[in-house]
């Protein structure tokens, strides 16, 4: 159960579907360079429900074939430069979504059912460009009432960062329930944590309610400040200056390559 970054990165194979969390939930940034070094390509990314720096770097490194997301940006630091360039070049296949559709797809997978219906979307170009989504009439309504069906999203692997895990593989995710949703839906779950504690997190009711149990966790690696330059809730703030530095550097492919080789030597 206790592993390290390189071993975990090696579990990601070519063409896998990889679920990654929104920037404020706990992004395993410490896994980004090991994943790039391992080099499995043709990945399909599922952003839960939006993507940021990690997604941009995996795209910049040429590992991404396709992406399902509700947005990709660097937040306060602006647009995601390698994502935007890849869109312009037609280098990645886009499945634009809306946040609750991604949650609905994961929820269907969590329940082991083929799809989840959801409101909204009708008349949007988001729906018009999704040939994998369907519209049907609500079978319980007297007449009409079209509703969209979102197929289950079953990623091969989910990757995220959390404050702590115990030696038994339980991970404390607090109120960031989207991390649990990712794990429930995915075949494997790889987690980096700030620290590994000795006692069992499920022995104490105060921590147990916020635990993702070991049942859903494949491997854990310790990575202090592992979300940097993103922040981690309750632990440390986002390093916006570093995000801005990346945003400027990664405007060109060469600038991106320089940043990534330099950043390998820099520790937060």
């Amino acid at each position, binding site marked *: 159960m206790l592993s390290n970054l390189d071993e975990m990165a090696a579990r990601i194979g070519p063409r896998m579907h990889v679920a990654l969390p*929104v920037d*404020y*939930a706990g992004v395993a940034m410490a896994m980004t360079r090991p994943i790039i070094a391992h080099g499995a390509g043709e990945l399909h990314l599922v952003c*839960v*429900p*939006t993507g940021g720096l990690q997604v941009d770097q995996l795209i910049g490194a040429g590992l991404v074939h396709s992406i399902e*997301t*509700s*947005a*990709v*940006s660097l*937040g*306060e630091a602006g*647009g*995601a430069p390698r*994502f*935007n360039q890849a*869109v*312009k*070049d*037609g280098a990645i296949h*886009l499945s*634009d*979504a*809306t*946040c*609750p*559709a991604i*949650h609905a797809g994961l*929820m269907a997978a969590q329940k082991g059912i083929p799809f989840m219906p*959801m*409101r*909204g*979307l*009708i*008349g*949007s*170009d*988001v*729906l018009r*460009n999704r040939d994998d989504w369907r519209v049907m009439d609500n079978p319980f309504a007297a007449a*009409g*009432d*079209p*509703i969209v069906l979102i197929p289950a999203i079953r990623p091969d692997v989910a990757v995220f960062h959390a404050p702590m895990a115990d030696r038994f593989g339980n991970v404390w995710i607090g*109120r*960031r*329930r*989207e*991390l*649990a*949703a990712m794990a429930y839906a995915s075949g494997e779950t790889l987690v980096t944590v700030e620290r590994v504690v000795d006692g069992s997190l499920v022995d104490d009711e105060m921590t147990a309610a916020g635990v993702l149990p070991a049942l859903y966790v494949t491997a854990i690696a310790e990575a202090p400040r592992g979300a940097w330059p993103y922040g981690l*809730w309750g632990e440390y703030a986002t390093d916006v200056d570093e995000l801005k530095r990346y945003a400027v550097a990664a405007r060109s492919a060469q600038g991106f390559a320089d940043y990534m080789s330099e950043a390998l030597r820099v520790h937060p």
Partner: protein
Amino acid sequence: MSAETLPRELLIGTIARLLEGVRHVAVGATSPIPAAGAMLRRALDERNGVPAARLSILGSVRHNFFTNGSAELFDAAGQGRIDAFFLSGGQIDGQANVNLVGLGDYPRSEVRWPGSFGSAYLYFVVPRVILFREEHTPRVFVKNVDFISAPGVSSPEVYRPGGPVALLTGKGLFSFDRQRPGFTLDSLHPGHDLMEVQEATGFDFAHPANPPVTPALDASTLGLLRRQVLNELEETYPAYVADWRRDLAGLGEAH
């Protein structure tokens, strides 16, 4: 107290007015002016002794109720537990269609923006959606958007308790008529005139012959804003608040 109001304070005060009577308002990420408007609404409700608006400010720890992950906002909205929300757009057209995806042909957008976020859902289920875009230019307010992230209106068979009620820009305030459908200019901010707004807007809109001026904030409201709201906002938007304080110092209003 100086009667002078900063442009951003007029926008915040106008948002607070548009939120009158809401039980629960949610504000998305990177939205300091809507967040401040929601906080001012709550402060005004408390001052007036009426049930205060509840706030869910994304990105805030203190002014946020959610404990069930990023899906909870959408679940709450789907049940009608959120009365008001804000949307913006890289483009917004006269039918209140919103484009958050990009310019040119999809998918290979010439200019790509982040994406639709929750708009394609929240626009349908939140009753009072306020469109907010400070930049009022023909490149933003277009005849037809290049990509519909979320449509302004829907045909009658589509479930749609929600939708746009107003559009607030740096030049004026519009209301939206879902029946017509279309925008009506309700008021002009101080220093702007009708012809200027028509030239800056790529779609036609209804308007009175002589549109009134957007009402200024009274001294008591301005006081609440500059003391309580400014401090509440700082947790989530420190850089924005620092900038605002610099503007106030420029007015001779430094505290």
